[in-house]
């Protein structure tokens, strides 16, 4: 059957391209980056809309071994594949390909992935693709219908980069007045210089942290890399103070600030970013090499550098840092190519 021959040809080509396959670009969040991506290249637009219209493909694939393809391309998960295969089709469109004639509509899926825009723009073709003006609506509609049942990568891992927490600042109330001179005398790891600063600076080795202990009984603990470590360190400091003879308690432990950092691995045009996001950004190369981006939701300050390194600070919760990074990543990707 000629249908099978074409299918085999397509599958062979897919197998050959597996070595050269682009990493699946993270474009599945239904808002801005998706549309921005579509606007950039016209080919995938046409290709994608054709995918959406394909619902009733009746091709018989049972006889062919599809195990090497990602799960989405098998018959059962046809609906989900229309999104994921968009990226594959994009790469298929870009690479040099022989254009196959388009005989029957049962091959529409393969056709749309095989042929490039040239064949699509031919009027009166069997694959009657219409680039509908309401395409964005249909996109979001199909996306919303797809997301509940999909085993696709969750949106939170879109960028594939997880910011690393570098520092946590927390405070705790020991609820008793302290004699700082006595603490500095009896503790090996304490330094106290009342002329310079009115607190004892104490350090412990595990977790590697520093604490400022004030005579009112309040304490600030800095340097921990996770919330649990910060809490453990604060408890250790309280225990040291207890052993020195003070009735120290452990009240109102609160994380005041978290700092995270990560690398997006591409260079960023800071001048462009400050032009488009003027109300949030502050870029003064005469003062500081990085761009200071004050995100409103969540309320986080990001330092963005030309090398692609991003520092996020001002968070009270870990999720705020992750959310802020997922918000900024699509914006930064927009400035990837000059």
């Amino acid at each position, binding site marked *: 059957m000629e249908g099978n021959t074409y299918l085999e040809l397509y599958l062979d080509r897919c197998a050959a391209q597996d070595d050269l396959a682009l990493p699946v670009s993270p474009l599945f969040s239904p808002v801005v980056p998706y549309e921005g991506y579509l606007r950039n290249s016209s080919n995938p637009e046409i290709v994608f809309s054709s995918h959406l219209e394909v619902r009733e493909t009746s091709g018989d694939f049972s006889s062919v071994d599809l195990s090497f393809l990602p799960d989405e391309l098998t018959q059962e998960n046809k609906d989900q594949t229309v999104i994921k295969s968009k990226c594959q089709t994009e790469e298929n469109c870009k690479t040099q390909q022989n254009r196959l004639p388009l005989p029957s509509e049962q091959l529409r899926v393969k056709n749309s992935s095989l042929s490039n825009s040239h064949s699509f723009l031919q009027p009166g073709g069997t694959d009657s693709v219409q680039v509908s003006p309401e395409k964005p609506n249909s996109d979001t509609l199909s996306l919303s219908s797809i997301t509940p049942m999909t085993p696709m990568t969750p949106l939170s891992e879109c960028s594939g980069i997880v910011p690393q927490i570098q520092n946590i600042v927390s405070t705790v109330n020991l609820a008793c007045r302290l004699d700082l001179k006595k603490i500095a005398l009896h*503790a090996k790891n304490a330094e106290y210089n009342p002329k310079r600063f009115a607190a004892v600076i104490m350090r412990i080795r595990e977790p590697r942290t520093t604490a400022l202990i004030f005579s009112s009984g309040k304490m600030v603990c800095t340097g921990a890399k996770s919330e649990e470590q910060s809490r453990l360190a604060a408890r250790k400091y309280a225990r040291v103070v207890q052993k020195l003879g003070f009735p120290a308690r452990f009240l109102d432990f609160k994380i005041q600030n978290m700092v995270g950092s990560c690398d997006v691995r*591409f260079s960023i045009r800071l001048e462009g970013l400050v032009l488009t996001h003027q109300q949030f950004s502050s870029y003064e190369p005469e003062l500081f090499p990085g761009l200071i981006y004050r995100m409103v939701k969540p309320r986080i300050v990001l330092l963005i550098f030309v090398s692609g390194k991003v520092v996020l600070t001002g968070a009270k919760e870990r999720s705020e840092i992750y959310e802020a990074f997922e918000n900024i990543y699509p914006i930064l990707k927009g400035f990837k190519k000059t």
Partner: protein
Amino acid sequence: MPGGGRCPDCGSTELVEDSHYSQSQLVCSDCGCVVTEGVLTTTFTDEGNLREVTYSRSTGESEQVSRSQQRGLRRVRDLCRVLQLPSTFEDTAIAYYQQAYQHSGIRAARLQKKEVLVGCCVLITCRQHNWPLTMGTICALLYADMDVFSGTYMQIVKLLGLDVPSLCLADLVKTYCSSFKLFQASPSVPAKYVEDKDKMLSRTLQLVELANETWLVTGRHPLPVITAATFLAWQSLQPSDRLTCSLARFCKLANVDLPYPAASRLQELLAILLRMAEQLAWLQVLKLDKRSVVKHIGDLLQHRHMLVRMAFQDGTAETEDQEKEQQGQRQEQRHGEEEVDSSLDLPKGKRPASPALLLPPCMLKPPKRIRPILPISTVTGDENISDSEIEQYLRTPQEVRDFERAQAASHASTSVPNPP
């Protein structure tokens, strides 16, 4: 005014507090009858019962223009005149200063900060009108510390909620280049060093544009880049006579301060030009180095757009490709967009093997230290803390006594001994 008061004449409850000159009166709004009236003057005993209010809390402060604010406004006008700014700038800067003064944090700030605030207002005005004024210039004029200036500037921009556009590079080039004293012969400037202003300006502009395109400007202070570009432009216009002149000597001749990073920017710019020169066949055979490439800057700038595209590949596409190719770098199969020229040239062997990456210099240098990837810690925060661990941080009584003795000894030695 509700409050239980009634007009004795008409009986209405609509009483309004209305002052007649400085005498407060309660008047009925229906019939106009004065119900009660306050005293016009205070007696001595009355005044004795009044409590004094500090000036900052009295109403007079916000109504009048305080002396320090007047001084500040005068300084703004003086600064605008020294910089020879148009008169509209003066009004805008004055308005900003007055606006800033409304905030209590600025009113209560030290004099040093108020002085720097003058500079900030002028700078913001200039930026909004695209007048190229650098922070360095203002700090020099005000004898201000750059740290104080930067802190005040960031604070005032946030406080007033202003949109300050970036420094306009092209205008800065024109202003800065015009300040170089090389356009007329003088005792310090020999004839062969004198240059035509327009030629130098246009070439410097082209070089700065090239630097901007090749990531040498983003994130860096703009002025050293312009200094380096001016120097190269000047050298390239008459290389035979000027190649012997160094950057430092050039700035001294031109009566301009040499910014410290300019030397490093110069090297970066020369490296870019060398890479571009490798793409021109007639320059390849000459085997140029950093000194000889200066002679050909004119040609390189003429074709700079094409040469940059040929000499460099986009850094991002390159890393993606390398990720997907496991082994066997068959360049013909790369994406044809940017790399076609370079990959096709490889078999010919005429062009360099792989084009350099077009990335900011900070990304091209190897990392100073590899960031250690921390193992995932399984700390819960509620573990038991062993006594021995805490004991290690405490001094034994013997150690305490020794420490006290040592401290006393050090205090005794540092204290001034009594004269005999």
